[in-house]
């Protein structure tokens, strides 16, 4: 006589997504004359990377201007939450048309 192996009806171990719906901001098709903010996490050579990007984009797009990363402070770590709260206002205050955020590593 053999006994049937038990079977189990099991549930999902994850939980509902809480990701807020959203969409990307509208883009201008031309960076000439635009103001670009630099958002840096103060890690992984951003102090080398941003000046390289600045120089290259200035050569390609006349009138482009940069709000350098020191203006915003670090996007990672100690003051991250405070910056997150104030960032939209800072971007408005400095007239940023776009931002470059770095460095994810």
């Amino acid at each position, binding site marked *: 006589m053999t006994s049937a*192996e038990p079977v189990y009806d099991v549930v*999902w171990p*994850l939980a*509902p997504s*809480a990701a807020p719906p959203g969409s990307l901001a509208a*883009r201008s098709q031309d960076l000439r004359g635009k103001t670009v903010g630099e958002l840096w996490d103060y890690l992984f*050579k951003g102090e080398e990377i941003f000046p390289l990007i600045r120089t290259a984009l200035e050569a390609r797009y006349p009138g482009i201007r940069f709000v350098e990363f020191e203006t915003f402070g670090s996007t990672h770590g100690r003051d991250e939450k405070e910056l997150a709260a104030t960032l939209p206002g800072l971007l408005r205050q400095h007239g940023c048309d776009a931002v470059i*955020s770095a460095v994810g*590593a």
Partner: protein
Amino acid sequence: MLRAAAIAERAGVPSVSIVTTPFMQQAAVVSKGVGLPSLPIAEYPGVPMTDGSDAVARKIDALLPQIVAGLAGARDVARTAVAEPGPRDIVARGTLDEVQELYHENLWSDGLPVIPPTIDRVERFLAQTRRAPDEVIGRLLPENRAATVWSIAVNGVMAGCRPEYMPVLVAIVEAIAEPIFRVEDAGSTPGWEPLVIVSGPIARRLDLNHGQGVMRVGRQANTSLGRFLRLYLRNVAGLRIPPGAGDKGSIAGSFNVALAEDEDASAALGWPTFGADQGFTRDDSVVTVQSVVSISPPIYSAGTRALEHARILAEVFGGACSYWSAIGMKYARWEPLLVLGPSIARVIADDGWSKEDLRRYLHEHVTITARQAETYALQVGATSFTLDAHVKAGVLPASYATSSDPERTVPVFVQPEKIGILVAGDPGRNQSKGYVNNHIQGGRVSKRV
């Protein structure tokens, strides 16, 4: 970094984020979690920290088209809504082996066999709490899922917990959901692991080990509580190592079993318990969670005077903390934990030292040079970190910039009051052990059960 980009996008400002190739999968998890899966990314090939200046310049030049495309051309990709199961939906019916295979294939397990989470078993856990199953304790990044009481029960079942652990499981999740814990960074490259510390009467009620072998797998409560948290981070925060994504711990480590204090020993010394140090009474049942990124060697200390033990503790515990203290200095917060063997605590207390005295001694006597601190921070990636700049910015106290001499010494422990001290381990041996936490990532959070 991507979270800042998402804030800009939601404020109507287009963004592009520079992400290195090895982090692209994690970036996808984060982008989805912030609700903007199409966040434009410019992919930096390789590892900047091992690239020389020429290589960085060459790679950035090659990256420009992606940067421009992100800022000036990117568009949202249409998203296909994927229906996910509801809490009571049966996702499969199968034998024990079939259930294990299903959970492994879907990355829902931690590699060990799980107890099949049937509705009946989950309800036995829910019966141990007054919280509603659909109550949301918090949102857990990076995957950004709602930490429901139901999901806590499901993962508690899977981890091999007993139903009566449920109030502790809820308190654990309450702790990690606090912003100061920064669960979003629990998948960072240092590979830190949370440590659960259970204080007060519930530790005894649940039969947590606080004595010999306290941090070894083997006692059901200690082990399954620790396993639960790792499983919960995988399933609800979305922190999975390959073939999953989201957890970028470079080498990382396995889960810590839950730690409990020998509170009777602590009380006999006239010392406050660890729970009391967190602002609770000895009658409060409390769960504390903090990160652990590395562990000291076993610290043997001998002698009949407090100073004899303090010297060895400073050398070995302090030595274990020294390398990582640079990152603690960068963020001006970290909370290492010293687990003192009962016999050692007895000598120290009998010599008239309080926990505060020991903390003060460690603060004053464990130092590294400023050159070491800045060099160590640089290796991790803090390429612009200097102690002087942090003092000028008011992040660190003036004692970190008393001169410009790179060989000047600075305290390893930024805030002595943040050194946790807890009495546990083998009362029959003279051994302690130190737990180094990951600075502001996994900050110490306590919750009443």
